Protein backbone atom coordinates (compact mmCIF):
# COMPACT_ATOMS: atom_id res chain seq x y z
CA UNK A 1 0.00 0.00 0.00
CA UNK A 2 1.39 3.42 -0.87
CA UNK A 3 2.23 5.93 1.82
CA UNK A 4 2.89 9.66 1.76
CA UNK A 5 5.86 10.35 3.98
CA UNK A 6 8.39 13.06 4.62
CA UNK A 7 11.79 11.59 3.86
CA UNK A 8 15.07 13.01 5.03
CA UNK A 9 17.73 13.53 2.38
CA UNK A 10 20.67 11.39 3.53
CA UNK A 11 23.11 11.99 0.70
CA UNK A 12 22.86 13.81 -2.61
CA UNK A 13 25.61 13.64 -5.17
CA UNK A 14 26.20 14.65 -8.79
CA UNK A 15 27.60 11.47 -10.37
CA UNK A 16 28.23 12.98 -13.79
CA UNK A 17 27.33 16.34 -15.29
CA UNK A 18 23.57 16.73 -14.76
CA UNK A 19 23.11 13.22 -13.31
CA UNK A 20 22.35 12.84 -9.64
CA UNK A 21 21.84 10.20 -6.98
CA UNK A 22 19.79 11.09 -3.91
CA UNK A 23 19.34 8.79 -0.91
CA UNK A 24 16.14 9.26 1.06
CA UNK A 25 15.27 7.95 4.51
CA UNK A 26 11.78 6.45 4.36
CA UNK A 27 11.21 3.20 6.29
CA UNK A 28 7.49 2.95 5.46
CA UNK A 29 8.25 3.09 1.74
CA UNK A 30 11.54 1.17 1.78
CA UNK A 31 10.09 -1.76 3.73
CA UNK A 32 7.42 -2.34 1.06
CA UNK A 33 9.19 -1.24 -2.12
CA UNK A 34 10.25 -3.68 -4.83
CA UNK A 35 12.66 -3.21 -7.72
CA UNK A 36 10.86 -1.53 -10.61
CA UNK A 37 8.42 0.41 -8.46
CA UNK A 38 8.51 4.17 -8.13
CA UNK A 39 7.68 7.09 -5.88
CA UNK A 40 6.05 10.47 -6.56
CA UNK A 41 8.42 13.13 -5.26
CA UNK A 42 7.16 16.57 -4.25
CA UNK A 43 9.89 18.87 -5.54
CA UNK A 44 8.20 22.22 -4.85
CA UNK A 45 6.58 23.66 -1.74
CA UNK A 46 4.56 26.03 -3.86
CA UNK A 47 2.70 25.46 -7.11
CA UNK A 48 5.45 25.61 -9.71
CA UNK A 49 5.87 22.88 -10.64
CA UNK A 50 2.45 21.85 -9.41
CA UNK A 51 2.75 18.07 -9.68
CA UNK A 52 4.96 15.50 -8.00
CA UNK A 53 7.67 13.85 -10.09
CA UNK A 54 7.52 10.08 -10.75
CA UNK A 55 10.92 8.50 -10.11
CA UNK A 56 11.81 4.86 -9.85
CA UNK A 57 13.75 3.42 -6.95
CA UNK A 58 17.37 2.68 -7.83
CA UNK A 59 18.24 0.58 -4.81
CA UNK A 60 16.13 -0.32 -1.83
CA UNK A 61 17.71 -0.55 1.62
CA UNK A 62 16.15 -1.50 4.96
CA UNK A 63 14.87 1.96 5.81
CA UNK A 64 15.95 4.10 2.86
CA UNK A 65 16.07 4.11 -0.92
CA UNK A 66 18.03 5.83 -3.64
CA UNK A 67 16.87 7.58 -6.78
CA UNK A 68 18.91 8.37 -9.89
CA UNK A 69 17.82 11.26 -12.06
CA UNK A 70 18.91 13.54 -14.85
CA UNK A 71 18.45 17.31 -14.89
CA UNK A 72 15.66 17.93 -17.37
CA UNK A 73 13.46 20.82 -16.34
CA UNK A 74 12.20 22.89 -13.46
CA UNK A 75 11.24 19.88 -11.33
CA UNK A 76 14.62 18.17 -11.41
CA UNK A 77 16.36 21.54 -11.03
CA UNK A 78 14.52 22.10 -7.74
CA UNK A 79 15.16 18.52 -6.64
CA UNK A 80 18.87 18.92 -7.27
CA UNK A 81 19.00 21.79 -4.75
CA UNK A 82 17.90 19.63 -1.79
CA UNK A 83 20.64 19.24 0.81
CA UNK A 84 21.28 16.41 3.26
CA UNK A 85 19.09 16.90 6.32
CA UNK A 86 16.26 18.53 4.41
CA UNK A 87 12.89 16.79 4.17
CA UNK A 88 11.08 15.88 0.98
CA UNK A 89 7.62 14.36 0.59
CA UNK A 90 7.44 11.05 -1.27
CA UNK A 91 4.34 9.03 -2.16
CA UNK A 92 5.00 5.35 -2.73
CA UNK A 93 5.71 2.62 -3.43
CA UNK A 94 3.63 2.82 -6.61
CA UNK A 95 3.24 0.64 -9.68
CA UNK A 96 4.23 -2.95 -10.28
CA UNK A 97 7.82 -4.00 -9.89
CA UNK A 98 9.76 -6.54 -11.93
CA UNK A 99 8.70 -10.14 -11.52
CA UNK A 100 11.67 -12.09 -10.17
CA UNK A 101 11.72 -15.68 -11.38
CA UNK A 102 14.47 -18.19 -10.85
CA UNK A 103 13.42 -20.74 -13.49
CA UNK A 104 14.96 -18.81 -16.40
CA UNK A 105 18.37 -19.70 -17.74
CA UNK A 106 19.63 -16.20 -18.45
CA UNK A 107 18.85 -12.61 -17.45
CA UNK A 108 20.00 -9.63 -19.52
CA UNK A 109 19.47 -6.03 -18.47
CA UNK A 110 19.50 -3.45 -21.27
CA UNK A 111 19.73 0.14 -20.07
CA UNK A 112 19.58 3.25 -22.23
CA UNK A 113 20.76 6.53 -20.73
CA UNK A 114 19.02 7.46 -17.48
CA UNK A 115 16.83 4.37 -18.03
CA UNK A 116 19.49 2.58 -15.99
CA UNK A 117 17.90 4.17 -12.91
CA UNK A 118 15.56 1.23 -12.30
CA UNK A 119 18.15 -1.54 -12.71
CA UNK A 120 20.62 -1.66 -9.81
CA UNK A 121 17.77 -2.78 -7.53
CA UNK A 122 16.66 -5.37 -10.08
CA UNK A 123 20.20 -6.76 -10.34
CA UNK A 124 20.35 -7.07 -6.55
CA UNK A 125 16.98 -8.83 -6.43
CA UNK A 126 17.97 -11.25 -9.23
CA UNK A 127 21.25 -12.09 -7.49
CA UNK A 128 19.40 -12.74 -4.26
CA UNK A 129 16.68 -14.95 -5.73
CA UNK A 130 18.41 -16.57 -8.72
CA UNK A 131 21.89 -16.69 -7.23
CA UNK A 132 23.35 -15.51 -10.49
CA UNK A 133 24.29 -12.01 -11.60
CA UNK A 134 22.49 -10.72 -14.70
CA UNK A 135 24.43 -9.52 -17.73
CA UNK A 136 24.12 -5.80 -18.32
CA UNK A 137 24.16 -3.79 -21.53
CA UNK A 138 24.82 -0.17 -20.59
CA UNK A 139 24.21 2.22 -23.44
CA UNK A 140 24.15 5.99 -23.70
CA UNK A 141 24.75 8.76 -26.19
CA UNK A 142 28.22 9.41 -24.85
CA UNK A 143 30.70 8.27 -22.19
CA UNK A 144 29.70 10.86 -19.57
CA UNK A 145 26.13 9.60 -19.55
CA UNK A 146 26.99 5.99 -18.71
CA UNK A 147 25.97 5.47 -15.10
CA UNK A 148 26.35 2.65 -12.57
CA UNK A 149 29.02 0.69 -14.49
CA UNK A 150 31.07 0.23 -11.31
CA UNK A 151 27.95 -0.65 -9.29
CA UNK A 152 27.06 -3.50 -11.62
CA UNK A 153 30.65 -4.77 -11.77
CA UNK A 154 30.85 -4.82 -7.97
CA UNK A 155 27.73 -6.98 -7.93
CA UNK A 156 29.47 -9.42 -10.25
CA UNK A 157 27.56 -8.53 -13.41
CA UNK A 158 29.23 -8.82 -16.78
CA UNK A 159 28.86 -5.32 -18.26
CA UNK A 160 28.80 -4.48 -21.99
CA UNK A 161 29.22 -0.79 -22.77
CA UNK A 162 27.93 0.97 -25.86
CA UNK A 163 27.79 4.61 -26.88
CA UNK A 164 26.32 6.32 -29.91
CA UNK A 165 29.59 8.18 -30.51
CA UNK A 166 32.00 5.40 -29.60
CA UNK A 167 33.50 7.37 -26.68
CA UNK A 168 33.23 4.27 -24.47
CA UNK A 169 32.66 0.62 -25.28
CA UNK A 170 31.28 -0.26 -28.68
CA UNK A 171 29.96 2.36 -31.06
CA UNK A 172 26.56 0.75 -31.29
CA UNK A 173 22.97 0.88 -30.14
CA UNK A 174 21.84 -1.15 -27.15
CA UNK A 175 19.72 -3.41 -29.34
CA UNK A 176 22.73 -4.23 -31.55
CA UNK A 177 24.76 -5.24 -28.51
CA UNK A 178 21.90 -7.40 -27.31
CA UNK A 179 21.74 -9.11 -30.70
CA UNK A 180 25.40 -10.12 -30.41
CA UNK A 181 24.74 -11.56 -26.96
CA UNK A 182 22.41 -14.05 -28.67
CA UNK A 183 19.38 -14.12 -26.42
CA UNK A 184 17.43 -17.36 -26.78
CA UNK A 185 14.37 -19.11 -25.38
CA UNK A 186 14.80 -19.20 -21.61
CA UNK A 187 16.39 -15.73 -21.61
CA UNK A 188 14.56 -12.80 -20.09
CA UNK A 189 15.54 -9.33 -21.26
CA UNK A 190 14.74 -6.28 -19.13
CA UNK A 191 14.79 -2.97 -21.00
CA UNK A 192 14.47 0.64 -19.91
CA UNK A 193 15.39 3.75 -21.88
CA UNK A 194 13.99 5.84 -24.70
CA UNK A 195 10.87 4.34 -26.34
CA UNK A 196 12.64 3.82 -29.66
CA UNK A 197 15.43 1.92 -27.89
CA UNK A 198 12.92 -0.26 -26.04
CA UNK A 199 11.07 -1.02 -29.25
CA UNK A 200 14.29 -2.17 -30.96
CA UNK A 201 15.53 -4.07 -27.93
CA UNK A 202 12.22 -5.90 -27.53
CA UNK A 203 12.14 -6.70 -31.24
CA UNK A 204 15.59 -8.31 -31.03
CA UNK A 205 14.67 -10.21 -27.87
CA UNK A 206 11.30 -11.45 -29.09
CA UNK A 207 12.63 -12.47 -32.54
CA UNK A 208 15.21 -14.59 -30.75
CA UNK A 209 12.49 -16.31 -28.75
CA UNK A 210 13.44 -14.60 -25.50
CA UNK A 211 11.07 -12.89 -23.13
CA UNK A 212 11.21 -9.11 -22.83
CA UNK A 213 9.98 -6.81 -20.10
CA UNK A 214 10.04 -3.05 -20.60
CA UNK A 215 9.82 -0.35 -17.95
CA UNK A 216 8.04 2.65 -19.46
CA UNK A 217 8.18 6.32 -18.59
CA UNK A 218 5.39 8.88 -19.01
CA UNK A 219 4.17 12.24 -17.80
CA UNK A 220 1.97 11.59 -14.80
CA UNK A 221 -0.25 13.76 -12.66
CA UNK A 222 -1.20 11.31 -9.91
CA UNK A 223 0.97 8.19 -10.27
CA UNK A 224 -1.94 6.19 -8.96
CA UNK A 225 -4.34 5.32 -11.78
CA UNK A 226 -6.68 8.27 -11.39
CA UNK A 227 -5.74 10.98 -13.88
CA UNK A 228 -5.44 8.68 -16.92
CA UNK A 229 -2.76 11.00 -18.26
CA UNK A 230 0.11 8.49 -18.53
CA UNK A 231 -1.44 5.92 -20.87
CA UNK A 232 0.21 4.13 -23.78
CA UNK A 233 -1.63 2.12 -26.39
CA UNK A 234 -1.71 -1.61 -25.92
CA UNK A 235 -2.45 -4.42 -28.34
CA UNK A 236 -5.77 -5.14 -26.63
CA UNK A 237 -8.54 -4.54 -29.08
CA UNK A 238 -11.39 -3.88 -26.68
CA UNK A 239 -12.18 -0.23 -26.03
CA UNK A 240 -11.85 -0.66 -22.28
CA UNK A 241 -8.39 -2.23 -22.36
CA UNK A 242 -6.72 -0.40 -25.23
CA UNK A 243 -5.14 2.30 -23.07
CA UNK A 244 -2.82 0.97 -20.40
CA UNK A 245 -1.70 3.20 -17.55
CA UNK A 246 2.06 3.36 -17.09
CA UNK A 247 1.60 4.14 -13.39
CA UNK A 248 -0.56 1.32 -12.10
CA UNK A 249 -0.84 -1.20 -14.95
CA UNK A 250 2.97 -0.85 -15.29
CA UNK A 251 5.46 0.68 -15.32
CA UNK A 252 6.83 -2.79 -16.13
CA UNK A 253 5.06 -4.42 -19.07
CA UNK A 254 5.54 -7.50 -21.20
CA UNK A 255 6.90 -5.91 -24.41
CA UNK A 256 4.39 -7.89 -26.48
CA UNK A 257 1.57 -5.99 -24.82
CA UNK A 258 2.73 -2.55 -26.00
CA UNK A 259 1.48 -1.41 -29.40
CA UNK A 260 4.77 -0.04 -30.73
CA UNK A 261 3.19 0.68 -34.12
CA UNK A 262 0.61 2.99 -32.57
CA UNK A 263 3.16 4.91 -30.52
CA UNK A 264 4.06 8.31 -31.91
CA UNK A 265 7.80 8.60 -31.29
CA UNK A 266 7.78 12.23 -32.40
CA UNK A 267 6.39 13.22 -28.99
CA UNK A 268 9.11 11.44 -27.00
CA UNK A 269 11.54 13.61 -25.06
Amino acid at each position, binding site marked *: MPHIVNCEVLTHRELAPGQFRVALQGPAIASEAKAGQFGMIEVARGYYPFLRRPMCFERILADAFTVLYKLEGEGTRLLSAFLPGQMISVQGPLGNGFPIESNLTRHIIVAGGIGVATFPGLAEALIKVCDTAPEVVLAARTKDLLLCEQDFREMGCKVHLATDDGSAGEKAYASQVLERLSPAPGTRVYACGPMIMMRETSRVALEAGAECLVSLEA*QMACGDGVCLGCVVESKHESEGERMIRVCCDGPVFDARMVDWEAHNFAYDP
Partner: protein
Amino acid sequence: MPGWLTGKPTISPMTPDLSINLGGLAMKNPVMVASGTFGYGQEYDRYFDISKLGAVCTKSLSLNVRAGNKPPRLVETPAGLLNAIGLQNVGIDAYLREKAPYLRKKGVTIVANIYGHAPDEYVELARRLEAEGAADAIEANLSCPNVHNAKLATGPSMVSQVPEQVAEYTTSIRSATKLPLFIKLTPNVVNICEPALAAQEGGANGVALINTLLGMAIDTETRRPKLANIVGGLSGPAIRPVAVKMVWDAARVLKIPIIGMGGICIAADAIEFLLAGASSVAVGSMSFRQPDASLRVVEGVEAYLRQHGIPTVSDLVGAIRV
Protein backbone atom coordinates in the same frame (compact mmCIF):
# COMPACT_ATOMS: atom_id res chain seq x y z
CA MET B 1 0.04 25.91 27.77
CA PRO B 2 -1.59 29.25 26.98
CA GLY B 3 -2.20 30.28 23.41
CA TRP B 4 0.18 33.25 23.58
CA LEU B 5 3.03 30.84 24.30
CA THR B 6 2.24 28.07 21.84
CA GLY B 7 1.30 30.52 19.11
CA LYS B 8 -1.91 28.61 18.45
CA PRO B 9 -4.95 30.81 17.93
CA THR B 10 -7.63 30.68 20.56
CA ILE B 11 -10.25 28.28 19.28
CA SER B 12 -13.92 28.91 19.85
CA PRO B 13 -15.51 26.09 21.87
CA MET B 14 -18.58 26.00 19.63
CA THR B 15 -18.78 23.35 16.96
CA PRO B 16 -19.65 25.00 13.67
CA ASP B 17 -22.30 23.46 11.45
CA LEU B 18 -20.68 22.41 8.18
CA SER B 19 -23.72 20.69 6.72
CA ILE B 20 -25.49 22.12 3.71
CA ASN B 21 -28.43 21.39 1.48
CA LEU B 22 -27.25 21.77 -2.07
CA GLY B 23 -30.34 22.08 -4.25
CA GLY B 24 -31.92 19.11 -2.49
CA LEU B 25 -28.72 17.15 -1.89
CA ALA B 26 -27.92 16.84 1.82
CA MET B 27 -24.17 17.04 2.41
CA LYS B 28 -22.33 16.75 5.72
CA ASN B 29 -19.97 19.50 4.60
CA PRO B 30 -19.65 21.65 1.48
CA VAL B 31 -16.49 19.99 0.14
CA MET B 32 -16.59 17.54 -2.75
CA VAL B 33 -14.06 16.45 -5.34
CA ALA B 34 -14.18 17.45 -8.98
CA SER B 35 -15.07 14.93 -11.66
CA GLY B 36 -12.06 13.36 -13.32
CA THR B 37 -9.66 14.04 -10.47
CA PHE B 38 -10.77 11.32 -8.08
CA GLY B 39 -11.45 8.26 -10.24
CA TYR B 40 -14.43 6.42 -8.84
CA GLY B 41 -13.49 7.12 -5.21
CA GLN B 42 -12.01 3.76 -4.37
CA GLU B 43 -8.56 4.71 -5.64
CA TYR B 44 -8.10 7.38 -2.98
CA ASP B 45 -9.90 5.53 -0.21
CA ARG B 46 -6.51 3.92 0.44
CA TYR B 47 -5.21 7.28 1.68
CA PHE B 48 -8.14 8.55 3.78
CA ASP B 49 -11.76 7.85 4.65
CA ILE B 50 -13.55 9.30 1.64
CA SER B 51 -16.92 9.15 3.40
CA LYS B 52 -15.77 12.19 5.39
CA LEU B 53 -16.22 14.33 2.28
CA GLY B 54 -19.42 16.20 1.53
CA ALA B 55 -19.68 14.18 -1.68
CA VAL B 56 -17.59 12.29 -4.21
CA CYS B 57 -18.10 13.19 -7.85
CA THR B 58 -17.29 10.37 -10.27
CA LYS B 59 -15.30 10.47 -13.47
CA SER B 60 -17.69 11.26 -16.37
CA LEU B 61 -19.74 8.18 -17.16
CA SER B 62 -20.92 7.43 -20.69
CA LEU B 63 -23.22 4.72 -22.03
CA ASN B 64 -20.32 2.84 -23.57
CA VAL B 65 -16.74 2.26 -22.47
CA ARG B 66 -14.44 4.95 -23.87
CA ALA B 67 -10.70 4.57 -24.48
CA GLY B 68 -10.20 8.34 -24.71
CA ASN B 69 -7.69 10.31 -26.78
CA LYS B 70 -4.29 9.27 -28.04
CA PRO B 71 -1.28 10.01 -25.81
CA PRO B 72 0.41 12.23 -24.86
CA ARG B 73 -2.61 13.51 -22.97
CA LEU B 74 -1.03 15.46 -20.19
CA VAL B 75 1.46 18.29 -19.91
CA GLU B 76 2.42 20.41 -16.96
CA THR B 77 2.27 24.20 -17.29
CA PRO B 78 3.00 26.93 -14.73
CA ALA B 79 0.93 26.31 -11.58
CA GLY B 80 -1.27 23.82 -13.36
CA LEU B 81 -1.66 21.18 -16.02
CA LEU B 82 -3.19 20.76 -19.44
CA ASN B 83 -5.06 17.55 -20.12
CA ALA B 84 -6.74 16.00 -23.10
CA ILE B 85 -7.87 12.69 -21.65
CA GLY B 86 -11.00 12.55 -23.80
CA LEU B 87 -13.41 11.10 -21.22
CA GLN B 88 -11.84 7.67 -20.89
CA ASN B 89 -14.18 5.81 -18.55
CA VAL B 90 -15.42 2.34 -17.68
CA GLY B 91 -18.94 2.97 -18.98
CA ILE B 92 -22.21 2.95 -17.06
CA ASP B 93 -22.53 -0.84 -16.86
CA ALA B 94 -19.19 -1.35 -15.13
CA TYR B 95 -19.88 1.63 -12.89
CA LEU B 96 -23.17 0.14 -11.73
CA ARG B 97 -21.65 -3.32 -11.33
CA GLU B 98 -18.25 -2.55 -9.81
CA LYS B 99 -17.89 1.04 -8.65
CA ALA B 100 -21.21 2.17 -7.15
CA PRO B 101 -21.54 -0.75 -4.70
CA TYR B 102 -18.21 0.17 -3.13
CA LEU B 103 -19.24 3.81 -2.68
CA ARG B 104 -22.61 2.76 -1.27
CA LYS B 105 -20.96 0.37 1.19
CA LYS B 106 -18.66 3.17 2.33
CA GLY B 107 -21.64 5.48 2.91
CA VAL B 108 -20.36 8.04 0.41
CA THR B 109 -22.70 10.73 -0.94
CA ILE B 110 -22.42 10.17 -4.68
CA VAL B 111 -22.62 12.80 -7.38
CA ALA B 112 -22.55 10.86 -10.66
CA ASN B 113 -21.08 12.90 -13.50
CA ILE B 114 -22.52 11.91 -16.88
CA TYR B 115 -21.55 12.56 -20.48
CA GLY B 116 -23.41 11.78 -23.71
CA HIS B 117 -23.47 12.73 -27.36
CA ALA B 118 -27.10 13.91 -27.32
CA PRO B 119 -29.85 14.66 -24.81
CA ASP B 120 -31.30 11.15 -25.04
CA GLU B 121 -27.99 9.63 -23.89
CA TYR B 122 -27.95 11.87 -20.82
CA VAL B 123 -31.57 10.90 -20.19
CA GLU B 124 -30.78 7.19 -20.29
CA LEU B 125 -27.75 7.60 -18.03
CA ALA B 126 -29.71 9.61 -15.46
CA ARG B 127 -32.61 7.14 -15.52
CA ARG B 128 -30.36 4.14 -14.98
CA LEU B 129 -28.41 5.80 -12.18
CA GLU B 130 -31.61 6.71 -10.36
CA ALA B 131 -33.28 3.34 -10.97
CA GLU B 132 -30.26 1.47 -9.60
CA GLY B 133 -29.85 3.82 -6.64
CA ALA B 134 -26.28 4.45 -7.79
CA ALA B 135 -26.27 8.24 -7.36
CA ASP B 136 -27.55 10.82 -4.89
CA ALA B 137 -27.29 13.57 -7.48
CA ILE B 138 -26.49 13.93 -11.16
CA GLU B 139 -23.91 16.29 -12.58
CA ALA B 140 -24.28 16.65 -16.36
CA ASN B 141 -20.99 17.43 -18.07
CA LEU B 142 -21.94 19.80 -20.88
CA SER B 143 -18.45 21.19 -21.07
CA CYS B 144 -15.72 18.68 -21.89
CA PRO B 145 -13.07 20.49 -23.93
CA ASN B 146 -11.49 17.32 -25.30
CA VAL B 147 -14.18 15.75 -27.41
CA HIS B 148 -16.01 17.01 -30.52
CA ASN B 149 -14.19 19.65 -32.54
CA ALA B 150 -12.57 21.80 -29.88
CA LYS B 151 -9.36 21.92 -31.89
CA LEU B 152 -10.99 23.42 -34.96
CA ALA B 153 -11.96 26.67 -33.26
CA THR B 154 -14.74 27.14 -35.79
CA GLY B 155 -17.78 27.91 -33.72
CA PRO B 156 -18.97 26.34 -30.50
CA SER B 157 -17.46 22.98 -29.62
CA MET B 158 -19.19 22.39 -26.31
CA VAL B 159 -22.88 22.23 -25.51
CA SER B 160 -22.58 24.71 -22.70
CA GLN B 161 -21.19 27.38 -25.03
CA VAL B 162 -24.70 27.74 -26.45
CA PRO B 163 -27.32 28.81 -23.85
CA GLU B 164 -30.23 27.45 -25.93
CA GLN B 165 -28.58 24.02 -25.97
CA VAL B 166 -27.97 24.18 -22.22
CA ALA B 167 -31.68 24.81 -21.72
CA GLU B 168 -32.63 21.99 -24.08
CA TYR B 169 -30.30 19.42 -22.52
CA THR B 170 -31.22 20.46 -18.99
CA THR B 171 -34.95 20.24 -19.68
CA SER B 172 -34.54 16.74 -21.11
CA ILE B 173 -32.47 15.42 -18.20
CA ARG B 174 -34.76 17.16 -15.72
CA SER B 175 -37.76 15.28 -17.07
CA ALA B 176 -35.92 11.97 -16.63
CA THR B 177 -34.91 12.14 -12.98
CA LYS B 178 -36.04 13.41 -9.61
CA LEU B 179 -32.46 13.42 -8.31
CA PRO B 180 -30.85 16.80 -7.72
CA LEU B 181 -29.43 17.88 -11.08
CA PHE B 182 -26.32 19.99 -11.48
CA ILE B 183 -25.01 21.28 -14.80
CA LYS B 184 -21.26 21.61 -15.26
CA LEU B 185 -20.40 24.58 -17.44
CA THR B 186 -17.39 25.64 -19.43
CA PRO B 187 -15.63 28.92 -18.69
CA ASN B 188 -14.84 29.29 -22.39
CA VAL B 189 -17.69 31.73 -23.01
CA VAL B 190 -18.11 35.49 -23.20
CA ASN B 191 -20.62 35.70 -20.36
CA ILE B 192 -20.94 32.83 -17.87
CA CYS B 193 -24.33 34.14 -16.69
CA GLU B 194 -26.02 33.17 -19.96
CA PRO B 195 -25.47 29.38 -19.84
CA ALA B 196 -25.92 29.45 -16.05
CA LEU B 197 -29.33 31.12 -16.36
CA ALA B 198 -30.25 28.70 -19.14
CA ALA B 199 -29.49 25.78 -16.81
CA GLN B 200 -31.66 27.37 -14.14
CA GLU B 201 -34.51 27.89 -16.57
CA GLY B 202 -34.20 24.27 -17.71
CA GLY B 203 -34.83 23.11 -14.18
CA ALA B 204 -31.33 22.46 -12.82
CA ASN B 205 -30.87 22.43 -9.06
CA GLY B 206 -27.40 23.94 -9.31
CA VAL B 207 -24.47 24.70 -11.60
CA ALA B 208 -20.87 23.57 -11.32
CA LEU B 209 -18.38 26.30 -12.18
CA ILE B 210 -15.87 25.90 -13.78
CA ASN B 211 -14.67 23.16 -16.08
CA THR B 212 -11.18 23.60 -17.54
CA LEU B 213 -10.04 26.55 -19.63
CA LEU B 214 -8.95 25.71 -23.16
CA GLY B 215 -5.22 25.95 -23.64
CA MET B 216 -2.25 24.64 -25.54
CA ALA B 217 1.49 24.25 -25.16
CA ILE B 218 4.12 23.87 -27.87
CA ASP B 219 7.52 22.20 -27.75
CA THR B 220 9.85 24.85 -29.14
CA GLU B 221 12.51 22.33 -30.21
CA THR B 222 10.25 20.02 -32.19
CA ARG B 223 7.63 22.72 -32.95
CA ARG B 224 4.96 20.18 -32.11
CA PRO B 225 2.05 20.69 -29.74
CA LYS B 226 2.80 18.94 -26.46
CA LEU B 227 -0.58 17.18 -26.53
CA ALA B 228 -1.50 14.75 -29.30
CA ASN B 229 -4.96 16.34 -29.22
CA ILE B 230 -3.21 19.70 -29.87
CA VAL B 231 -5.41 21.52 -27.34
CA GLY B 232 -6.47 20.59 -23.84
CA GLY B 233 -8.11 21.83 -20.68
CA LEU B 234 -6.13 23.86 -18.15
CA SER B 235 -6.64 23.19 -14.46
CA GLY B 236 -4.84 23.84 -11.20
CA PRO B 237 -4.13 26.97 -9.16
CA ALA B 238 -3.32 28.89 -12.36
CA ILE B 239 -7.04 29.16 -13.15
CA ARG B 240 -8.37 29.97 -9.67
CA PRO B 241 -8.82 33.74 -10.07
CA VAL B 242 -10.76 33.17 -13.28
CA ALA B 243 -13.01 30.65 -11.55
CA VAL B 244 -13.64 32.85 -8.51
CA LYS B 245 -14.63 35.72 -10.78
CA MET B 246 -17.04 33.54 -12.75
CA VAL B 247 -18.65 32.28 -9.54
CA TRP B 248 -19.03 35.88 -8.40
CA ASP B 249 -20.60 36.85 -11.73
CA ALA B 250 -23.05 33.94 -11.73
CA ALA B 251 -23.97 34.22 -8.05
CA ARG B 252 -25.41 37.68 -8.58
CA VAL B 253 -27.94 36.50 -11.15
CA LEU B 254 -28.77 32.92 -10.08
CA LYS B 255 -31.34 31.66 -7.63
CA ILE B 256 -29.94 28.09 -7.67
CA PRO B 257 -26.71 27.23 -5.81
CA ILE B 258 -23.23 27.06 -7.30
CA ILE B 259 -20.57 24.40 -6.83
CA GLY B 260 -17.37 26.40 -7.12
CA MET B 261 -14.17 24.81 -8.41
CA GLY B 262 -10.97 25.67 -10.21
CA GLY B 263 -7.57 25.41 -8.54
CA ILE B 264 -8.69 24.85 -4.96
CA CYS B 265 -5.68 23.53 -3.03
CA ILE B 266 -6.20 24.61 0.59
CA ALA B 267 -9.06 25.74 2.83
CA ALA B 268 -8.44 29.43 2.16
CA ASP B 269 -9.01 28.80 -1.54
CA ALA B 270 -12.31 27.09 -0.81
CA ILE B 271 -13.40 29.95 1.46
CA GLU B 272 -12.64 32.38 -1.35
CA PHE B 273 -15.19 30.55 -3.52
CA LEU B 274 -17.77 30.52 -0.71
CA LEU B 275 -17.33 34.25 -0.17
CA ALA B 276 -17.74 34.83 -3.92
CA GLY B 277 -21.11 33.08 -3.75
CA ALA B 278 -20.54 29.33 -4.14
CA SER B 279 -22.58 27.16 -1.76
CA SER B 280 -20.31 24.17 -2.22
CA VAL B 281 -16.77 23.66 -3.48
CA ALA B 282 -14.82 20.93 -5.22
CA VAL B 283 -11.13 20.12 -4.96
CA GLY B 284 -9.80 19.11 -8.36
CA SER B 285 -6.24 18.66 -9.62
CA MET B 286 -4.77 19.13 -6.15
CA SER B 287 -5.89 15.58 -5.31
CA PHE B 288 -3.31 14.37 -7.85
CA ARG B 289 -0.55 15.94 -5.81
CA GLN B 290 -2.04 15.33 -2.37
CA PRO B 291 -4.74 12.63 -2.37
CA ASP B 292 -6.18 13.83 0.95
CA ALA B 293 -6.19 17.52 -0.02
CA SER B 294 -10.02 17.57 0.03
CA LEU B 295 -10.15 16.27 3.60
CA ARG B 296 -7.64 18.92 4.65
CA VAL B 297 -9.93 21.52 3.10
CA VAL B 298 -12.86 20.20 5.19
CA GLU B 299 -10.74 20.47 8.34
CA GLY B 300 -9.44 23.88 7.38
CA VAL B 301 -12.90 25.29 6.69
CA GLU B 302 -14.05 24.06 10.10
CA ALA B 303 -11.02 25.67 11.76
CA TYR B 304 -11.75 28.94 9.96
CA LEU B 305 -15.35 28.96 11.19
CA ARG B 306 -14.17 28.34 14.76
CA GLN B 307 -11.51 31.01 14.59
CA HIS B 308 -13.97 33.58 13.32
CA GLY B 309 -16.86 32.50 15.52
CA ILE B 310 -19.09 31.76 12.53
CA PRO B 311 -21.82 29.25 13.46
CA THR B 312 -22.68 27.74 10.06
CA VAL B 313 -20.77 27.44 6.84
CA SER B 314 -23.74 28.82 4.90
CA ASP B 315 -23.09 32.17 6.59
CA LEU B 316 -20.00 32.50 4.41
CA VAL B 317 -21.83 32.07 1.12
CA GLY B 318 -21.74 35.32 -0.81
CA ALA B 319 -20.37 37.12 2.26
CA ILE B 320 -17.75 39.04 0.28
CA ARG B 321 -17.48 42.66 1.38
CA VAL B 322 -17.50 44.95 -1.64
